[in-house]
């Protein structure tokens, strides 16, 4: 009896890999990872506890690697649609630098290691939240929602909003209203940010068959949704001051930033339907990144100021 099937013996070995460490780092989506690290760090700093600095650094690394692992798993699953979109065609899997199986293995190993490390070095509540984030991003968003509903990034946005909660939980060992507010800011910010992108990249999404809001419900409806969410973003931004865990100075700055966000969204709402240049949508997309960074930087400065003042 043959122990190995003939067809396997006859298979020619695949080409040897030319992937470098840089290609595997690209699988981790470093730019997304940097935003995750930043927001998680703010969550840690605002939490009412003082962790050992070295353990806090390890917890940050674990959160960063966990976020990167979910990025690698996303690139493994989405290689077919990444290939047809200009924005993602250069990713390592569609370019053929990294085999899909390698990306899958890399993502799974890093997921397990990051969750275990966070559990052992911080606490298991934070580790559970990190595991849930990876599951939610990969299974709920990537595998299920992304290709089936225009609400994909609304619900899927929860995965990107969880890092400050994980940072908070890693230090304080709790989930509180304050950490939920940090979650809410990113959760509400995600739809206008991605729909602004989807407005001027609708051709890309249509080619890939992804049901983004402009492709399914039309540009007019998307612009109205963007404006409605922008109002909610502006309100959520001032909540830390309203609830008393950020200063009045932060509240004033957040209100100004929120006002600017609504103004950019208003310009998108006033955009003519036939306008293909989409300058207001591009401007809103750019400003949304500035907004999120500025809000969390302000919370960081505010938290540091109250720590030094205490």
């Amino acid at each position: 009896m043959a122990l190995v099937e003939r067809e396997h013996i006859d298979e020619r070995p695949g080409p040897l890999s030319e992937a470098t460490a840089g290609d595997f780092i690209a699988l981790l989506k470093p730019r997304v990872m940097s935003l995750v690290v930043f927001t998680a760090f703010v969550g840690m700093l605002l939490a009412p506890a003082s962790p050992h600095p070295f353990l806090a650094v390890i917890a940050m690394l674990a959160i960063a690697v966990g976020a990167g692992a979910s990025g690698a798993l996303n690139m493994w699953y989405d290689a077919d649609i990444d290939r047809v979109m200009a924005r993602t065609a250069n990713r390592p899997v569609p370019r053929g630098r990294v085999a899909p199986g390698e990306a899958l293995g890399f993502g799974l190993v890093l997921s397990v290691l990051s969750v275990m490390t966070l559990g052992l070095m911080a606490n298991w509540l934070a580790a559970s939240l990190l595991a849930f984030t990876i599951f939610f991003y990969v299974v709920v968003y990537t595998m299920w929602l992304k290709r089936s509903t225009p609400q994909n990034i609304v619900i899927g946005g929860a995965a990107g909003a969880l890092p400050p909660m994980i940072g908070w939980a890693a230090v304080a060992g709790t989930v509180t209203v304050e950490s939920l507010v940090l979650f809410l800011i990113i959760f509400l910010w995600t739809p206008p940010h991605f729909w602004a992108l989807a407005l001027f990249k609708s051709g890309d999404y249509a080619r890939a068959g992804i049901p983004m809001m402009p492709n399914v419900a039309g540009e007019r409806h998307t612009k109205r949704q963007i404006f409605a969410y922008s109002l909610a973003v502006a309100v959520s931004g001032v909540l830390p001051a309203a609830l008393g865990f950020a200063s009045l100075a932060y509240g004033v700055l957040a209100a100004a930033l929120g006002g600017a966000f609504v103004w950019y969204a208003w310009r998108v709402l006033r955009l003519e339907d036939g306008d293909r240049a989409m300058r207001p949508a591009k401007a809103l997309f750019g400003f949304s990144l500035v907004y999120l960074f500025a809000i969390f930087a302000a919370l960081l400065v505010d938290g540091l100021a109250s720590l030094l003042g205490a």
Partner: protein
Amino acid sequence: MPDDERNERDNREDRVTPTQAQLRARRNRNIAIALALAAFVILLYLGSIMKLGPALFNRSM
């Protein structure tokens, strides 16, 4: 044809000779894995000591 000679020829056919670029990439990956693994071990070792505290070393021989 003697068996040894046939085996030798079959083995040669099955082999893949890596190109210089593939060898360079493999070396690059190996170094990265070694560094990442070493960093992970050191982090976990030091982290365990910090987590358990100085009392970890305070025990009778």
